[in-house]
């Protein structure tokens, strides 16, 4: 396997690990505020790694730029959605979790 492909594979596997961690967090964290971290931070890092791996695999600058644009758009959307849903949850009266 060429070095570039190997590097791409490592990047994508790292991304998959982050996605897995995000899913575990989404299912296991105690309240919506914690779960937002899993979904809008961890998963985004995972997406970044996966897209970086794919960009490396394609070997084309245009493809890499398109994937970068996709990642930036997702970051923008996630950040906003995280803020909006946390605010909505607070207004809905969802109490933040505290260790009992």
């Amino acid at each position: 396997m060429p070095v570039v492909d190997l590097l791409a594979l490592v990047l994508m596997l790292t991304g998959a690990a982050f996605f897995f961690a995000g899913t575990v967090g989404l299912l296991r964290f105690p309240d919506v505020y914690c779960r937002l971290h899993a979904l809008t931070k961890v998963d985004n890092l995972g997406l970044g790694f996966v897209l970086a791996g794919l960009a490396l695999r394609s070997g084309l600058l245009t493809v890499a730029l398109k994937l970068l644009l996709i990642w930036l758009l997702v970051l923008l959307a996630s950040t906003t959605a995280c803020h909006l849903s946390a605010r909505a949850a607070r207004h809905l009266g969802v109490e933040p979790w505290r260790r009992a």
Partner: protein
Amino acid sequence: MTAILWAFDVVLAVTLVALAAGVLATASLFRSIVLFIVFGLTMSIAWARLDAVDLGLVEAAVGAGLTGALLLNTLGHMRSQAEFTPEPSHGPGGRLALALAAGTAGLAIGAAVWAWPDAFAGLGDRVDTHLAESGAQNPVTAVLLNFRAYDTLLEIGVLVVAVVAVWALSPMRGRVLDADPPGLVLAGFVHLLVPVVVLVAGYLLWMGTDAPGGAFQAGAVLAAAGVLLLITGRVAPPQLQAIVERGAVVLGLVAFLAVGVAVMAGGHAFLELPDAWATTLILLLESLLTISIAIVLVILFAGGRTDAAHPPEDAAP
């Protein structure tokens, strides 16, 4: 390779059916709607798996931007009143009968599908033969704008009729919407995102003649940007009073008819695009259709005029 993709197909199909069942089985309407949004987005993965990229694009735009927005919007309108009415149940006998009837119909259709011949060219070969003279490299665009332009013409007609129908059902009393300022983060987000979305729509439109993309995809994406502007109060709800607004609704239909009739001057049949002009005409039609489709979808989302004479009852702060 194949085994992996098979596993993918199995997981995808089971997920789709489970989501559909969940949408219809759950007690909470809100949960139902969220599952329905997810169902639509999962369909776009299925389209990707079936090489139907054009459909994946439009489903992604519709699923992420429009259907969910329409349903959530209606739920928001309906929820202001006493809402929760438990579903009357049919009783076990009735449910069993209904399930048996639906299952039998499914078995019959399933058997018909099972009996399909494995190889079936359909109309694909004829499209391939004439693709070069259609004015578009993307066969789906060639079918939509040239070979079966009648279908597309009528579809634009359906969109205009939908606007008329929605408008005929208004005005209605409801809650005052979009009055609160959106907040700094949301306002900034919309400010940043809308130009990018417009750019993406333009890209899909431009790509449409050669690759997956085109008027419907671009129109649906553009409509989502319109929904964002509407919902954050950046643009006022359409009232369909101004000639510009009304003109935009019928723009696609009128352009389509005009082109269809104009080619007849050159001795062609109605909507028969002359080969030499086909690419130009398709691009022109698609551009106008994109604008029309986007505006119609935004107007459908807005859902009718607001009645100034009868202000909504909870308008007071």
